[in-house]
Protein backbone atom coordinates (compact mmCIF):
# COMPACT_ATOMS: atom_id res chain seq x y z
CA UNK A 1 0.00 0.00 0.00
CA UNK A 2 1.45 3.40 -0.90
CA UNK A 3 2.10 5.89 1.85
CA UNK A 4 -0.40 8.68 1.39
CA UNK A 5 0.14 10.97 4.35
CA UNK A 6 1.28 14.44 3.41
CA UNK A 7 4.35 16.06 4.82
CA UNK A 8 2.27 18.72 6.56
CA UNK A 9 0.27 16.05 8.30
CA UNK A 10 3.43 14.32 9.45
CA UNK A 11 4.88 17.54 10.77
CA UNK A 12 1.59 18.33 12.53
CA UNK A 13 1.80 15.04 14.41
CA UNK A 14 5.47 15.50 15.23
CA UNK A 15 4.72 18.98 16.52
CA UNK A 16 1.90 17.69 18.75
CA UNK A 17 4.27 15.16 20.26
CA UNK A 18 7.35 17.34 20.59
CA UNK A 19 6.01 20.72 21.59
CA UNK A 20 2.39 20.31 22.67
CA UNK A 21 2.82 17.54 25.25
CA UNK A 22 0.60 15.04 23.47
CA UNK A 23 0.92 11.76 25.27
CA UNK A 24 -0.90 8.67 26.35
CA UNK A 25 -1.53 9.35 29.99
CA UNK A 26 -2.07 5.77 30.98
CA UNK A 27 -2.36 2.20 29.80
CA UNK A 28 -4.37 0.61 32.57
CA UNK A 29 -4.80 -3.12 32.76
CA UNK A 30 -7.95 -4.21 34.55
CA UNK A 31 -7.62 -7.56 36.30
CA UNK A 32 -10.40 -9.62 37.84
CA UNK A 33 -9.28 -10.90 41.23
CA UNK A 34 -12.55 -12.47 42.33
CA UNK A 35 -10.93 -15.90 42.08
CA UNK A 36 -8.25 -14.93 44.59
CA UNK A 37 -10.14 -15.35 47.83
CA UNK A 38 -8.12 -17.30 50.38
CA UNK A 39 -8.75 -18.43 53.92
CA UNK A 40 -7.14 -15.38 55.50
CA UNK A 41 -5.98 -11.86 54.67
CA UNK A 42 -2.45 -13.11 54.13
CA UNK A 43 -3.56 -15.97 51.90
CA UNK A 44 -5.92 -13.73 49.87
CA UNK A 45 -3.25 -11.07 49.51
CA UNK A 46 -0.71 -13.60 48.29
CA UNK A 47 -3.09 -14.97 45.68
CA UNK A 48 -3.90 -11.48 44.44
CA UNK A 49 -0.20 -10.65 44.31
CA UNK A 50 0.54 -13.71 42.20
CA UNK A 51 -2.30 -13.04 39.81
CA UNK A 52 -1.29 -9.41 39.26
CA UNK A 53 2.35 -10.30 38.69
CA UNK A 54 1.38 -13.07 36.26
CA UNK A 55 -1.15 -11.02 34.26
CA UNK A 56 0.61 -7.67 34.21
CA UNK A 57 4.26 -8.73 34.41
CA UNK A 58 5.04 -7.44 30.92
CA UNK A 59 2.77 -4.37 31.03
CA UNK A 60 5.57 -1.89 31.61
CA UNK A 61 7.77 -3.39 28.90
CA UNK A 62 4.95 -3.35 26.34
CA UNK A 63 4.16 0.27 27.21
CA UNK A 64 7.82 1.26 26.88
CA UNK A 65 8.17 -0.59 23.56
CA UNK A 66 5.13 1.20 22.14
CA UNK A 67 6.56 4.51 23.26
CA UNK A 68 9.80 3.81 21.42
CA UNK A 69 8.29 2.49 18.21
CA UNK A 70 5.56 5.05 17.74
CA UNK A 71 7.34 7.97 19.31
CA UNK A 72 4.40 8.73 21.57
CA UNK A 73 5.14 9.01 25.28
CA UNK A 74 3.22 6.50 27.39
CA UNK A 75 3.45 8.23 30.72
CA UNK A 76 1.92 5.70 33.09
CA UNK A 77 1.36 1.99 33.11
CA UNK A 78 -1.13 1.01 35.77
CA UNK A 79 -3.33 -1.78 37.06
CA UNK A 80 -6.87 -1.77 38.39
CA UNK A 81 -8.41 -4.71 40.21
CA UNK A 82 -11.87 -5.82 41.27
CA UNK A 83 -13.05 -3.82 44.30
CA UNK A 84 -11.20 -5.50 47.14
CA UNK A 85 -14.28 -5.30 49.41
CA UNK A 86 -16.03 -7.80 47.14
CA UNK A 87 -13.14 -10.24 46.97
CA UNK A 88 -12.15 -10.00 50.61
CA UNK A 89 -15.66 -9.89 52.09
CA UNK A 90 -15.65 -11.59 55.48
CA UNK A 91 -12.12 -10.54 56.36
CA UNK A 92 -11.39 -8.19 59.25
CA UNK A 93 -10.17 -4.61 59.03
CA UNK A 94 -6.61 -5.68 59.81
CA UNK A 95 -6.72 -8.38 57.17
CA UNK A 96 -7.92 -5.80 54.63
CA UNK A 97 -4.82 -3.73 55.41
CA UNK A 98 -2.72 -6.86 54.81
CA UNK A 99 -4.33 -7.28 51.40
CA UNK A 100 -3.56 -3.62 50.66
CA UNK A 101 0.11 -4.22 51.47
CA UNK A 102 0.21 -7.15 49.05
CA UNK A 103 -1.30 -4.89 46.36
CA UNK A 104 1.46 -2.38 47.01
CA UNK A 105 4.11 -5.08 46.67
CA UNK A 106 2.59 -6.32 43.43
CA UNK A 107 2.64 -2.79 42.01
CA UNK A 108 6.29 -2.38 43.01
CA UNK A 109 7.19 -5.77 41.57
CA UNK A 110 5.80 -5.00 38.11
CA UNK A 111 7.15 -1.44 38.17
CA UNK A 112 3.98 0.66 38.15
CA UNK A 113 3.41 3.81 40.19
CA UNK A 114 -0.26 3.35 41.08
CA UNK A 115 -2.66 0.45 41.44
CA UNK A 116 -6.38 1.07 41.92
CA UNK A 117 -9.14 -1.04 43.36
CA UNK A 118 -8.85 -0.85 47.13
CA UNK A 119 -12.48 0.00 46.72
CA UNK A 120 -16.02 -0.58 47.86
CA UNK A 121 -19.34 -0.02 46.09
CA UNK A 122 -21.77 1.08 48.79
CA UNK A 123 -24.29 3.26 46.96
CA UNK A 124 -27.21 1.45 48.54
CA UNK A 125 -25.64 0.15 51.74
CA UNK A 126 -22.70 -1.64 53.31
CA UNK A 127 -21.85 -5.30 53.37
CA UNK A 128 -19.60 -6.40 56.22
CA UNK A 129 -16.74 -6.52 53.74
CA UNK A 130 -17.44 -2.95 52.61
CA UNK A 131 -17.36 -1.73 56.20
CA UNK A 132 -14.12 -3.56 56.98
CA UNK A 133 -12.50 -2.21 53.83
CA UNK A 134 -13.56 1.38 54.43
CA UNK A 135 -12.31 1.22 58.01
CA UNK A 136 -9.01 -0.10 56.64
CA UNK A 137 -8.54 2.76 54.15
CA UNK A 138 -6.64 5.23 56.38
CA UNK A 139 -4.02 2.73 57.50
CA UNK A 140 -3.69 1.18 54.07
CA UNK A 141 -3.10 4.53 52.38
CA UNK A 142 -0.65 5.55 55.10
CA UNK A 143 1.37 2.34 54.97
CA UNK A 144 1.43 1.83 51.24
CA UNK A 145 2.82 4.03 48.52
CA UNK A 146 1.11 2.90 45.33
CA UNK A 147 -2.34 1.70 46.37
CA UNK A 148 -5.32 3.87 45.39
CA UNK A 149 -8.71 3.65 46.99
CA UNK A 150 -12.20 4.64 45.92
CA UNK A 151 -15.69 4.39 47.36
CA UNK A 152 -18.83 4.68 45.27
CA UNK A 153 -21.51 6.02 47.59
CA UNK A 154 -24.25 7.18 45.24
CA UNK A 155 -25.82 6.40 41.88
CA UNK A 156 -28.67 7.83 39.87
CA UNK A 157 -30.43 4.48 40.22
CA UNK A 158 -29.94 4.00 43.96
CA UNK A 159 -29.76 7.50 45.41
CA UNK A 160 -27.15 8.66 47.92
CA UNK A 161 -26.02 6.52 50.82
CA UNK A 162 -25.77 9.25 53.45
CA UNK A 163 -24.43 6.79 56.02
CA UNK A 164 -21.45 6.35 53.71
CA UNK A 165 -21.22 10.11 53.11
CA UNK A 166 -21.09 10.63 56.88
CA UNK A 167 -18.50 7.91 57.31
CA UNK A 168 -16.25 9.07 54.46
CA UNK A 169 -15.91 12.54 55.97
CA UNK A 170 -14.34 10.89 59.00
CA UNK A 171 -12.26 8.45 56.94
CA UNK A 172 -10.80 11.31 54.91
CA UNK A 173 -9.89 13.18 58.08
CA UNK A 174 -8.29 10.09 59.55
CA UNK A 175 -6.36 9.39 56.35
CA UNK A 176 -5.03 12.95 56.41
CA UNK A 177 -4.05 12.58 60.06
CA UNK A 178 -2.12 9.36 59.42
CA UNK A 179 -0.19 10.99 56.57
CA UNK A 180 0.16 14.35 58.34
CA UNK A 181 3.91 14.56 57.84
CA UNK A 182 3.42 14.67 54.06
CA UNK A 183 0.52 17.16 53.99
CA UNK A 184 -2.12 14.42 54.06
CA UNK A 185 -0.98 12.80 50.81
CA UNK A 186 -3.03 9.70 51.66
CA UNK A 187 -6.12 11.68 50.68
CA UNK A 188 -4.70 12.27 47.20
CA UNK A 189 -5.06 8.50 46.70
CA UNK A 190 -8.69 8.36 47.86
CA UNK A 191 -11.71 9.24 45.73
CA UNK A 192 -15.40 9.12 46.59
CA UNK A 193 -17.73 8.72 43.64
CA UNK A 194 -21.27 9.05 42.50
CA UNK A 195 -21.97 6.90 39.41
CA UNK A 196 -18.40 5.52 39.34
CA UNK A 197 -17.25 4.24 35.95
CA UNK A 198 -16.30 0.55 35.98
CA UNK A 199 -13.74 0.96 33.21
CA UNK A 200 -12.09 4.23 34.24
CA UNK A 201 -8.34 3.98 33.56
CA UNK A 202 -7.41 7.09 35.56
CA UNK A 203 -6.14 7.05 39.10
CA UNK A 204 -6.94 7.38 41.89
CA UNK A 205 -10.45 6.23 40.98
CA UNK A 206 -9.70 3.24 38.74
CA UNK A 207 -11.11 -0.15 39.64
CA UNK A 208 -12.04 -3.20 37.59
CA UNK A 209 -15.82 -3.28 37.80
CA UNK A 210 -17.80 -6.45 38.46
CA UNK A 211 -19.23 -6.31 34.92
CA UNK A 212 -15.79 -6.36 33.33
CA UNK A 213 -14.06 -9.37 31.71
CA UNK A 214 -11.19 -11.37 33.20
CA UNK A 215 -8.64 -8.83 32.02
CA UNK A 216 -8.88 -5.73 29.85
CA UNK A 217 -6.81 -2.83 28.55
CA UNK A 218 -8.17 0.68 29.02
CA UNK A 219 -6.42 3.74 27.65
CA UNK A 220 -6.41 7.23 29.09
CA UNK A 221 -5.34 9.86 26.62
CA UNK A 222 -4.22 13.37 27.28
CA UNK A 223 -3.58 16.46 25.24
CA UNK A 224 -4.66 19.75 26.80
CA UNK A 225 -1.61 21.31 25.14
CA UNK A 226 -2.77 20.33 21.67
CA UNK A 227 -6.27 21.70 22.24
CA UNK A 228 -4.77 24.86 23.76
CA UNK A 229 -2.72 25.55 20.64
CA UNK A 230 -5.76 25.01 18.43
CA UNK A 231 -7.77 27.53 20.44
CA UNK A 232 -4.86 29.99 20.44
CA UNK A 233 -4.60 29.82 16.66
CA UNK A 234 -8.16 31.09 16.29
CA UNK A 235 -8.61 34.02 18.65
CA UNK A 236 -11.53 35.56 16.75
CA UNK A 237 -13.70 32.67 15.55
CA UNK A 238 -17.17 32.33 17.00
CA UNK A 239 -17.80 29.59 19.53
CA UNK A 240 -19.66 27.27 17.18
CA UNK A 241 -16.72 27.23 14.84
CA UNK A 242 -14.29 26.89 17.72
CA UNK A 243 -16.20 23.87 19.00
CA UNK A 244 -15.77 22.33 15.58
CA UNK A 245 -12.03 22.97 15.58
CA UNK A 246 -11.73 21.38 19.03
CA UNK A 247 -13.66 18.38 17.75
CA UNK A 248 -11.17 17.91 14.92
CA UNK A 249 -8.28 18.11 17.36
CA UNK A 250 -9.92 15.72 19.84
CA UNK A 251 -10.41 13.28 17.00
CA UNK A 252 -6.70 13.23 16.22
CA UNK A 253 -5.67 12.93 19.85
CA UNK A 254 -8.07 10.06 20.40
CA UNK A 255 -6.86 8.19 17.35
CA UNK A 256 -3.45 7.87 18.97
CA UNK A 257 -5.15 6.36 22.01
CA UNK A 258 -7.05 3.95 19.80
CA UNK A 259 -3.81 2.88 18.10
CA UNK A 260 -1.95 2.38 21.36
CA UNK A 261 -4.90 0.48 22.82
CA UNK A 262 -5.08 -1.90 19.88
CA UNK A 263 -1.34 -2.53 19.82
CA UNK A 264 -1.09 -2.99 23.60
CA UNK A 265 -4.08 -5.30 23.62
CA UNK A 266 -2.59 -7.44 20.87
CA UNK A 267 0.85 -7.67 22.42
CA UNK A 268 -0.44 -8.45 25.90
CA UNK A 269 -3.07 -10.85 24.63
CA UNK A 270 -5.70 -8.97 26.61
CA UNK A 271 -8.99 -7.68 25.17
CA UNK A 272 -9.16 -3.97 24.38
CA UNK A 273 -11.65 -2.28 26.68
CA UNK A 274 -12.08 1.42 26.06
CA UNK A 275 -10.40 4.70 25.31
CA UNK A 276 -11.17 7.35 27.90
CA UNK A 277 -11.47 10.67 26.07
CA UNK A 278 -10.30 12.81 28.90
CA UNK A 279 -8.32 16.00 28.75
CA UNK A 280 -6.07 15.26 31.69
CA UNK A 281 -3.78 18.12 32.67
CA UNK A 282 -0.42 17.85 34.40
CA UNK A 283 1.50 20.45 36.38
CA UNK A 284 3.71 21.01 33.28
CA UNK A 285 3.45 24.43 31.67
CA UNK A 286 1.09 24.39 28.68
CA UNK A 287 -0.55 21.12 29.74
CA UNK A 288 -3.44 22.86 31.43
CA UNK A 289 -7.22 22.78 31.00
CA UNK A 290 -7.41 26.16 32.73
CA UNK A 291 -5.18 27.64 30.00
CA UNK A 292 -7.63 26.40 27.35
CA UNK A 293 -10.54 28.14 29.05
CA UNK A 294 -8.50 31.30 29.43
CA UNK A 295 -7.41 31.23 25.80
CA UNK A 296 -11.09 31.18 24.88
CA UNK A 297 -11.23 34.67 26.32
CA UNK A 298 -11.58 34.46 30.10
CA UNK A 299 -9.12 36.60 32.03
CA UNK A 300 -8.83 33.87 34.66
CA UNK A 301 -10.55 30.55 35.01
CA UNK A 302 -13.27 30.97 37.60
CA UNK A 303 -14.51 34.21 36.06
CA UNK A 304 -18.17 34.27 35.04
CA UNK A 305 -18.44 32.35 31.81
CA UNK A 306 -16.08 29.58 32.95
CA UNK A 307 -18.88 27.04 33.25
CA UNK A 308 -20.14 27.78 29.75
CA UNK A 309 -16.64 27.59 28.29
CA UNK A 310 -15.98 24.30 30.05
CA UNK A 311 -19.32 22.87 28.91
CA UNK A 312 -18.47 23.64 25.30
CA UNK A 313 -14.95 22.24 25.62
CA UNK A 314 -16.14 19.07 27.33
CA UNK A 315 -18.81 18.37 24.76
CA UNK A 316 -16.54 19.07 21.78
CA UNK A 317 -13.90 16.71 23.17
CA UNK A 318 -16.51 13.96 23.50
CA UNK A 319 -17.94 14.49 20.03
CA UNK A 320 -14.56 14.45 18.32
CA UNK A 321 -13.29 11.56 20.40
CA UNK A 322 -16.37 9.38 20.02
CA UNK A 323 -15.84 9.31 16.25
CA UNK A 324 -12.21 8.31 16.64
CA UNK A 325 -12.49 5.23 18.78
CA UNK A 326 -14.35 1.96 18.47
CA UNK A 327 -15.06 1.82 22.21
CA UNK A 328 -15.32 4.89 24.35
CA UNK A 329 -15.79 4.76 28.08
CA UNK A 330 -14.39 5.69 31.45
CA UNK A 331 -14.86 9.29 32.49
CA UNK A 332 -14.39 10.91 29.08
CA UNK A 333 -14.34 14.66 29.52
CA UNK A 334 -12.18 17.50 30.76
CA UNK A 335 -10.61 17.08 34.18
CA UNK A 336 -10.36 20.12 36.40
CA UNK A 337 -8.06 19.09 39.23
CA UNK A 338 -6.53 22.00 41.07
CA UNK A 339 -3.12 20.76 42.21
CA UNK A 340 -2.36 19.04 38.89
CA UNK A 341 -3.03 22.08 36.69
CA UNK A 342 -0.77 25.14 36.78
CA UNK A 343 -3.53 27.40 35.43
CA UNK A 344 -6.01 26.30 38.09
CA UNK A 345 -3.43 26.92 40.80
CA UNK A 346 -2.77 30.41 39.48
CA UNK A 347 -6.51 31.17 39.39
CA UNK A 348 -6.90 30.08 43.01
CA UNK A 349 -3.90 32.20 44.01
CA UNK A 350 -5.36 35.23 42.26
CA UNK A 351 -8.67 34.77 44.02
CA UNK A 352 -10.50 34.07 40.75
CA UNK A 353 -11.40 30.46 41.46
CA UNK A 354 -13.30 29.33 44.54
CA UNK A 355 -14.57 25.95 45.63
CA UNK A 356 -18.12 27.12 44.87
CA UNK A 357 -17.26 27.94 41.26
CA UNK A 358 -15.45 24.62 40.95
CA UNK A 359 -18.57 22.88 42.17
CA UNK A 360 -20.61 24.62 39.48
CA UNK A 361 -18.03 23.62 36.86
CA UNK A 362 -18.29 19.99 37.92
CA UNK A 363 -21.89 20.00 36.64
CA UNK A 364 -20.53 20.15 33.11
CA UNK A 365 -17.06 18.57 33.28
CA UNK A 366 -16.12 14.93 33.43
CA UNK A 367 -15.63 14.36 37.13
CA UNK A 368 -15.70 16.54 40.19
CA UNK A 369 -13.88 18.37 42.94
CA UNK A 370 -10.48 16.92 42.29
CA UNK A 371 -7.25 17.40 44.21
CA UNK A 372 -8.50 20.28 46.30
CA UNK A 373 -6.58 21.09 49.45
CA UNK A 374 -8.70 22.51 52.26
CA UNK A 375 -7.82 23.68 55.77
CA UNK A 376 -6.73 20.92 58.14
CA UNK A 377 -9.28 21.97 60.73
CA UNK A 378 -12.25 21.53 58.37
CA UNK A 379 -14.79 19.45 60.34
CA UNK A 380 -15.49 15.92 59.07
CA UNK A 381 -19.16 16.88 58.67
CA UNK A 382 -18.25 19.73 56.34
CA UNK A 383 -16.20 17.34 54.20
CA UNK A 384 -19.19 14.98 54.17
CA UNK A 385 -21.43 17.87 53.12
CA UNK A 386 -19.13 18.77 50.21
CA UNK A 387 -19.27 15.11 49.17
CA UNK A 388 -23.07 15.11 49.48
CA UNK A 389 -23.34 18.15 47.21
CA UNK A 390 -21.13 16.56 44.56
CA UNK A 391 -23.03 13.27 44.79
CA UNK A 392 -26.31 15.15 44.36
CA UNK A 393 -24.99 16.80 41.18
CA UNK A 394 -23.99 13.41 39.81
CA UNK A 395 -27.19 11.69 40.83
CA UNK A 396 -29.52 14.27 39.33
CA UNK A 397 -27.49 14.83 36.16
CA UNK A 398 -26.84 11.11 35.54
CA UNK A 399 -23.11 11.66 35.42
CA UNK A 400 -20.00 10.63 37.28
CA UNK A 401 -18.96 13.05 39.99
CA UNK A 402 -16.23 12.63 42.53
CA UNK A 403 -14.42 14.28 45.39
CA UNK A 404 -10.74 14.08 46.12
CA UNK A 405 -10.30 16.47 49.01
CA UNK A 406 -7.18 16.89 51.10
CA UNK A 407 -7.75 18.44 54.54
CA UNK A 408 -4.06 19.19 55.00
CA UNK A 409 -3.18 18.81 58.68
CA UNK A 410 -2.03 22.02 60.34
CA UNK A 411 -2.52 24.07 57.18
CA UNK A 412 -4.83 27.04 56.74
CA UNK A 413 -6.00 29.24 53.87
CA UNK A 414 -2.97 30.89 52.27
CA UNK A 415 -0.66 27.92 52.99
CA UNK A 416 0.44 25.42 50.37
CA UNK A 417 0.63 21.65 50.15
CA UNK A 418 3.39 19.99 48.13
CA UNK A 419 2.96 16.46 46.86
CA UNK A 420 5.43 16.53 43.98
CA UNK A 421 5.34 14.70 40.66
CA UNK A 422 2.01 14.23 38.92
CA UNK A 423 0.09 15.10 42.08
CA UNK A 424 1.57 18.60 42.06
CA UNK A 425 1.13 21.35 44.63
CA UNK A 426 -1.85 23.40 45.67
CA UNK A 427 -2.89 26.40 47.73
CA UNK A 428 -5.32 25.69 50.56
CA UNK A 429 -8.81 26.75 49.49
CA UNK A 430 -11.42 28.32 51.69
CA UNK A 431 -14.50 26.29 52.55
CA UNK A 432 -17.80 27.67 53.77
CA UNK A 433 -17.39 28.22 57.54
CA UNK A 434 -21.03 27.58 58.45
CA UNK A 435 -21.90 24.17 59.84
CA UNK A 436 -23.64 21.36 57.97
CA UNK A 437 -23.27 18.96 60.89
CA UNK A 438 -26.95 18.61 61.80
CA UNK A 439 -27.86 17.78 58.22
CA UNK A 440 -25.06 15.25 57.79
CA UNK A 441 -25.76 13.55 61.12
CA UNK A 442 -29.28 12.68 59.99
CA UNK A 443 -27.68 9.98 57.81
CA UNK A 444 -29.92 7.41 56.07
CA UNK A 445 -30.40 7.38 52.32
CA UNK A 446 -31.43 10.11 49.91
CA UNK A 447 -33.90 8.31 47.62
CA UNK A 448 -33.16 7.87 43.94
CA UNK A 449 -34.52 10.69 41.80
CA UNK A 450 -37.75 10.38 39.83
CA UNK A 451 -35.89 10.00 36.56
CA UNK A 452 -34.33 6.76 37.83
CA UNK A 453 -37.78 5.22 37.38
CA UNK A 454 -37.38 4.78 33.66
CA UNK A 455 -38.10 1.10 33.22
Amino acid sequence: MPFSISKDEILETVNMLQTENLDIRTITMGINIQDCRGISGDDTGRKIYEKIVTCAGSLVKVGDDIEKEYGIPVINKRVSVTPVAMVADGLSQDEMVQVGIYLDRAAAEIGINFLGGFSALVHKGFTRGDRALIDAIPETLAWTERVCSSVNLATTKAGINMDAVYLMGQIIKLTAALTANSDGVGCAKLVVFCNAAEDNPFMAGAFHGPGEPETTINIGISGPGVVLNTVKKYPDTDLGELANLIKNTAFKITRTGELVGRVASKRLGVPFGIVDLSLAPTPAIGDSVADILESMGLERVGAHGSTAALAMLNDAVKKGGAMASSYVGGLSGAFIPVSEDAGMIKAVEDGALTIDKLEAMTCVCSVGLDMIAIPGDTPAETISAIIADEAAIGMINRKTTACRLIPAPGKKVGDWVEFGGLLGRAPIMKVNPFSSAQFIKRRGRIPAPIHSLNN
Partner: protein
Amino acid sequence: MEEGKRLIITVLGYDRVGIIAGISNILAAANVNILDISQTILQGFFTMVMVVDIAKSQVELSELKEMLDLKGDELQMKISVQHEDIFKFMHRI
Protein backbone atom coordinates in the same frame (compact mmCIF):
# COMPACT_ATOMS: atom_id res chain seq x y z
CA MET B 1 -4.18 -5.25 13.13
CA GLU B 2 -1.22 -5.70 10.81
CA GLU B 3 1.91 -4.02 12.06
CA GLY B 4 3.82 -2.89 8.99
CA LYS B 5 7.53 -2.42 8.58
CA ARG B 6 7.66 1.17 7.51
CA LEU B 7 8.98 4.03 9.57
CA ILE B 8 8.78 7.77 9.19
CA ILE B 9 11.93 9.69 9.97
CA THR B 10 11.56 13.42 10.48
CA VAL B 11 14.49 15.78 10.70
CA LEU B 12 14.17 19.36 11.90
CA GLY B 13 16.81 22.03 12.41
CA TYR B 14 19.01 24.63 10.77
CA ASP B 15 20.22 23.80 7.28
CA ARG B 16 23.83 22.71 6.80
CA VAL B 17 25.95 20.50 4.58
CA GLY B 18 25.68 16.75 4.87
CA ILE B 19 22.34 16.18 6.56
CA ILE B 20 20.89 13.75 4.05
CA ALA B 21 24.27 12.10 3.50
CA GLY B 22 24.79 11.59 7.21
CA ILE B 23 21.39 10.02 7.72
CA SER B 24 21.26 7.93 4.57
CA ASN B 25 24.69 6.46 5.37
CA ILE B 26 23.36 5.13 8.64
CA LEU B 27 20.27 3.75 6.91
CA ALA B 28 22.28 2.08 4.15
CA ALA B 29 24.62 0.47 6.68
CA ALA B 30 21.60 -0.91 8.50
CA ASN B 31 20.09 -2.21 5.25
CA VAL B 32 17.11 0.11 5.61
CA ASN B 33 15.54 1.03 2.27
CA ILE B 34 14.49 4.62 1.65
CA LEU B 35 11.11 4.75 -0.10
CA ASP B 36 10.52 8.47 -0.21
CA ILE B 37 12.24 11.70 0.78
CA SER B 38 10.81 15.17 0.80
CA GLN B 39 12.59 18.20 2.14
CA THR B 40 12.06 21.92 2.29
CA ILE B 41 14.08 24.84 3.54
CA LEU B 42 12.16 27.79 4.85
CA GLN B 43 14.25 30.79 5.95
CA GLY B 44 17.20 28.56 6.72
CA PHE B 45 15.05 26.09 8.67
CA PHE B 46 15.36 22.59 7.32
CA THR B 47 12.62 20.00 7.46
CA MET B 48 12.88 16.57 5.97
CA VAL B 49 10.47 13.67 6.02
CA MET B 50 11.65 10.20 5.00
CA VAL B 51 9.61 7.07 4.54
CA VAL B 52 11.77 3.97 5.02
CA ASP B 53 11.30 0.22 4.95
CA ILE B 54 12.99 -1.87 7.65
CA ALA B 55 11.70 -5.27 6.52
CA LYS B 56 15.17 -6.43 5.43
CA SER B 57 17.11 -4.75 8.18
CA GLN B 58 18.79 -6.83 10.87
CA VAL B 59 19.19 -3.85 13.15
CA GLU B 60 16.77 -3.50 16.06
CA LEU B 61 14.54 -0.47 15.94
CA SER B 62 15.84 0.80 19.27
CA GLU B 63 19.41 0.52 18.01
CA LEU B 64 18.56 2.39 14.81
CA LYS B 65 16.93 5.10 16.88
CA GLU B 66 20.00 5.41 19.03
CA MET B 67 22.31 5.75 16.03
CA LEU B 68 20.08 8.41 14.52
CA ASP B 69 19.85 10.22 17.86
CA LEU B 70 23.64 10.36 18.01
CA LYS B 71 23.76 11.63 14.46
CA GLY B 72 21.14 14.21 15.35
CA ASP B 73 23.29 15.47 18.20
CA GLU B 74 26.30 15.65 15.91
CA LEU B 75 24.38 17.58 13.23
CA GLN B 76 22.49 19.60 15.85
CA MET B 77 19.21 18.47 14.32
CA LYS B 78 16.15 16.93 15.96
CA ILE B 79 15.64 13.51 14.41
CA SER B 80 12.62 11.41 15.29
CA VAL B 81 11.80 7.90 14.16
CA GLN B 82 8.24 6.65 14.34
CA HIS B 83 6.22 3.77 13.05
CA GLU B 84 4.01 4.87 10.15
CA ASP B 85 0.80 3.73 11.85
CA ILE B 86 0.69 6.67 14.21
CA PHE B 87 0.36 9.00 11.23
CA LYS B 88 -2.12 6.77 9.43
CA PHE B 89 -4.27 6.49 12.52
CA MET B 90 -4.24 10.17 13.22
CA HIS B 91 -4.93 11.44 9.73
CA ARG B 92 -6.89 8.69 7.95
CA ILE B 93 -9.90 6.64 8.92
